[in-house]
């Protein structure tokens, strides 16, 4: 019962924070809401008993990504006071709502197979690591190449060349 209440609290908070990200009138606020929102998701992982992922979530998102984003925000700051929303925002809301309706109906309508006990089971870290490195070796290798590529790309794109 307690779990449920807690879950609802976190769930509502996550939604609100996510809404804050997209509705906030300040760039900086958005970024901060994002941290919260991502943290909420991390909490969900805890509820789902995948602690490892929660950890990753907090580290990668809460740490690296948000810092990166904040940095970028600083770097691209302009003095001009301008609206954060584009002209099509109302339509965007409509589209989002439609999509939401579809996704929710899909989530609810499906009778998910294998959903036997209506409860998550613990996923131990060892299994994850074994899966990740043994069963999913190739994607892992590719992912590492991907990271390398992203790294190289970020460097060559962001590097300031002489004359700039």
């Amino acid at each position: 019962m307690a779990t449920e209440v807690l879950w609802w609290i976190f769930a509502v908070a996550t939604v609100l924070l996510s809404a804050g990200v997209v509705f906030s009138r300040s760039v900086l606020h958005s970024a901060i809401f994002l941290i919260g929102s991502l943290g909420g998701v991390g909490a969900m992982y805890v509820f789902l008993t995948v602690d490892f992922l929660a950890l990753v979530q907090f580290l990668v998102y809460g740490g690296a990504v948000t810092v990166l984003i904040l940095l970028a925000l600083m770097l691209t700051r302009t003095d001009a006071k301008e609206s954060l929303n584009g002209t099509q925002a109302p339509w965007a809301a409509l589209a989002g709502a439609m999509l939401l309706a579809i996704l929710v109906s899909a989530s609810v309508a499906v009778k998910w197979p294998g959903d036997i006990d209506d409860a998550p089971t613990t996923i131990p870290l060892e299994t994850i690591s074994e899966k990740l490195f043994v069963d999913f070796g190739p994607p892992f290798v590719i992912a590492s190449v991907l990271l390398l590529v992203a790294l190289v790309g970020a460097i060559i794109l962001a590097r300031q060349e002489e004359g700039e």
Partner: protein
Amino acid sequence: MRDYALFVPEYIAAGWAVLVIAIELFWPKVRKDTLAYVTAAGALAWAVSALFYIGNEPESFQGLIQSDNFTTYFRLLAAGIVAAVSIMSANYLRDRTKTAGEYFGLLLVAGCATVYMAAATELITAYISLELLSFCLYILVGYLKRDNLSSEAALKYILLGAFSSAMLLYGMSLLYGIAGSTSYEGISQGLAARDQGGTDAGIVVAFMLILAGVGFKVSAAPFHMWAPDAYQGAPLPITALLSTLSKAAGFALILRLFSLAFVVDAVEWRWAFATLAAVTMTAGNLLALQQKNLKRLVAYSSIGQVGYMLVTIAAIGYGDATVGVNATSGLLVHIVGYVVSTLALFTALTAYYNKTGDDTIVGLRGLAETQPFLAVVITASFFSFAGLPFFAGFTTKLLMFQGATTDELLWVIGLAVLNSFISLYYYLMIVRQMYLFDPIPGMVRFRINPVMWVMSAGLMLGVLLIGIYPGPAFKAAENAAKPLFQQAEPGVAARQP
């Protein structure tokens, strides 16, 4: 099974990528065209090593990656594209950037990513390969850093790419939920075992989201809008890469995914492919009518081409395994024809662009006077796109549509043929510029780089060869297509509505 020998060619390619980057790292003054030729040599080595895999028994790496003729087919294709694009880039980059090692390295990596997209038989692998390819392309599109258009193109591409891959992922997650597996075979079985009671909104939503994701990759309307901008902003050889490698990879992924995993529930998605095909080809060709920039025009025309190709995917959904093999063979051979034509076109355009720096259509005025050979190559490529005989486009398109013809799809095929008729108009408008008008004052006859000349000539001969004697290419395509449909067990045959 963990047979690491299955990927020797990719080891070569990736190793060569590192080598190229290293060469420039340690020897910064190396001529950029030398790097290009080194890369091309690597791609050729890659291709040669790939030749040893032709006809091998299908073999799977842990159920994640499948090495069969289909993989080999795309391996050769990717190697060829990379080789051609790197040669194309030789002079282009020399004049425009200071560093080029990463550029060529990324080309090779993109090639490898393509191969894995074709080889993947599992969603995670497929997804990660797709992202790898996308990352390479994001960077390559924005490679001309000081060029505003290049940066803008990269930004649009990456933002929309991320957005659409989120869509794709959401679809994959729903699918995973429904089928309980991420391997294609598992998905297939999961879908087959699925309870059929009631309206199954989940599967529809999942398929449509995935469709949006892969549709974005191959730039199918209405997910195509990034393409013209990215094509226009990208460096010219990368535009070639976008319209060849990226599309080939997208179709490779779609082919394996839909023929192995999704064919069970074809009834849920086949109509969508037919619709997308119709919308895409019409939009692409109508929009191309009004273009003034060559790269944009090629972008729209390639969107039109994608529309044609999508018909075959719909055909896989509508027909049985036989139709599947037919349609897939047609699609594969058409991809080759399309790729060769596109490469020929871009080789010529790059040679021309290196000389003039002009990428508008009117810029081609009087090319038949100033550089008749290029005019011939460009004309041949456009005629090939339009599907005129003697050129690859005619034969491959005919074979593809013929393979894809089923009773339900005849209307789309009719529309496709009609569209290729519309496309003839704008191709002819370019031919008109080249042949019917006098050159811009001041333009005189010029020479082009002999390497480019040889490559243009070679590619044009390829276009002619495929157009006149498609037998071997078609045979190869069929061999590549067969593995996709051999595994379909009788019990997992497509459901009929």
